[in-house]
């Protein structure tokens, strides 16, 4: 408003300010007049795009409503105890979600444990160290990791990753870390560990790209100030960048956790799908998402279906909370710049 637009200036400069207005309107004006009243059209257009925006709320409410109303059978029968029971017996209509919740949590945290150090390393390298010409291709490559569909990761994991883990990595883990109790037992390949590794590869791009975004939003002045005080490069990154970006980085990690919790196909293909709680990471497990993928389409009986839908409801609520937290943390740092869609 304060700055006149270029096109406008050139047009308004033609008639002198106090001269009689030319009777004949310009070609543009006649063209627009011919289009009729715009007030109604404006209102309709605004209402239309507003409806589109409302549809986003509509979708969330619809999902919540469908999940709640279709799971009322188990909600009524087991109450909150559903989430702490270990039974899973479709024949006798006895259901509990604890093994699945356990599997989801353990595989997701394993994934975070593996991927966070690497994601931070990649983000630091790409924002602070990488020569300029290498930056674009490298970040493109890491983003390509995000573009590979889940089912392809699963396929690769079945035929490459699992044999690799089973034949080379797991025996070493059992030998050196077997005493902890986390790496013992039969070495089948299909395991919590395999799921954790696949998930780690899958959530890495989202964590590293968001961390990168947060780190680039730290003002250059911070870096220059620290360097001017005589810091080495690592000190500059630690004090000038990471310290300022830490909230956003935590947000990025939580967002990665949200992805890991809901990831379905790749996990289903490698985790072994057994609803048991075993301490060893080399044993098969089951997650909330994979029990849905495996059993949903053949669920017979209202109770069975209701139990599965309640697991879906729990997954929905958990991921909503996790994502909401993460978004707020990321927004707190990169305020103004809208979050990138990965």
């Amino acid at each position, binding site marked *: 408003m304060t700055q006149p*637009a270029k096109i406008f200036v050139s047009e308004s400069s033609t008639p002198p300010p106090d001269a009689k207005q030319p009777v004949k309107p310009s070609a543009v004006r006649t063209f627009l007049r011919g289009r009729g009243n715009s007030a109604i059209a404006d209102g*309709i*257009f605004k209402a239309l795009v507003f409806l589109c925006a409302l549809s986003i709320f509509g979708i969330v409410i619809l999902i919540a409503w*469908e999940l709640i109303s279709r799971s009322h059978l188990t909600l009524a029968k087991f109450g909150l105890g559903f989430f702490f029971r270990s039974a899973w017996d479709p024949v006798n209509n006895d259901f509990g979600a604890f093994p699945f919740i356990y599997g989801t949590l353990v595989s997701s945290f394993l994934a975070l444990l593996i991927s966070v150090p690497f994601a931070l390393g*990649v983000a630091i390298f790409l924002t602070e160290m990488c020569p300029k010409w290498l930056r674009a291709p490298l970040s493109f490559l890491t983003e390509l990791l995000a573009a*590979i*569909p889940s089912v392809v*990761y699963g396929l690769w994991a079945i035929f490459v990753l699992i044999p690799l883990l089973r034949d080379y990595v797991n025996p070493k883990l059992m030998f050196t870390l077997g005493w902890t109790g986390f790496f013992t037992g039969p070495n089948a390949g299909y395991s919590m560990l395999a799921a954790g590794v696949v998930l780690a590869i899958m959530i890495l791009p989202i964590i590293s790209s968001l961390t990168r975004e947060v780190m680039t939003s730290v003002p250059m002045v911070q870096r220059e100030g620290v360097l001017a005080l005589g810091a080495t490069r690592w*000190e500059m990154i630690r004090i000038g960048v990471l310290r300022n970006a830490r909230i956003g980085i935590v947000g990025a990690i939580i967002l990665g956790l949200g992805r890991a919790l809901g990831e379905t196909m790749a996990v289903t293909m490698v985790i072994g799908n057994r609803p048991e709680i075993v301490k060893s990471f080399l044993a098969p497990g089951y997650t909330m998402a994979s029990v*849905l993928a495996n059993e949903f389409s053949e669920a017979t009986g209202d109770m069975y279906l209701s139990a599965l839908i309640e697991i879906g409801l729990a997954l929905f609520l958990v991921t909503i909370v996790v994502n909401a937290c993460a978004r707020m943390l990321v927004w707190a740092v990169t305020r103004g710049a809208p979050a990138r869609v990965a």
Partner: protein
Amino acid sequence: MASQSLRPPLRASNVNVFSRRIKSNIVSGLALLATIIVIAPLIAILFYLLKQGITSLNWNFFTKIPVPAGESGGGMENAIVGSGVVLALASLIGIPLGIGAGIYLAEYAGSTRMGNLVRFTADVLNGVPSIVMGIAIYALIVLPQKHFSALAGGVVLGIMMVPTVTRTTEEMLRMVPHAIREAALGLGVPAWRSVLTITVRTASAGIVTGCMLAFARVAGETAPLLFTAFGNAFQSTSLNEPIAALPLQIFVYAVSPYDEWHRLAWAGALVLIVLIMASVALVRYVTSRGMLKGAS
């Protein structure tokens, strides 16, 4: 705030410049190593995919429908067509809704409370697991109809496209300089026409990019299709019947015990990934050329 937090680490502990420099170099090395290790699985996956995929890819793959286990030959023609049908329906639902919501956010809502709420909800919706979306649509469409259908599959994927399209559309529209809007309004163009023919048009390359990104994302989705589109061993394009889809077929073949089916799964994965990578690369190319050609 910065100067206070800076003092202790820089002055008190590290007097020895040499050890500090070594530490710095070690960390740099670790960061480089991390990057290399991260790139490794990507290269490994792509290499293995190419190796396995190309050897099993042949003309039959694109022209034949699946044959029963044990017989050789057969392809995924029905899955490719099915994916096309489902994705077309999804785009028909997701893209208009998403672009509309994006226009609302960029042109009308600004940073009002309502605008922020929509933005926030879209981001949260983006993080809802696809399988949960699948269940919701199963309960909404499949249960009342009592059969799986391509329609349900299209609706799920369409809904999943909305948040991505919304956010990228908004981002792109916000990059259009204000002067252009003011110029249009100053000429007496009605607001809705100015939005559609000036702002949206200027940002169109960017908006198309966003749509393709969303498309590429849902093209590989398997989980929500498991109990909506369900899959179909035969040729079908009817919206009212179960339909095959490429990711679904890959999943079924991958977990099967037959070598012949494994080969088909690899071929399918190769085709899928080439499609997705091509669109991502195209997106990359368009964005690197500058989204706002018309504006400058």
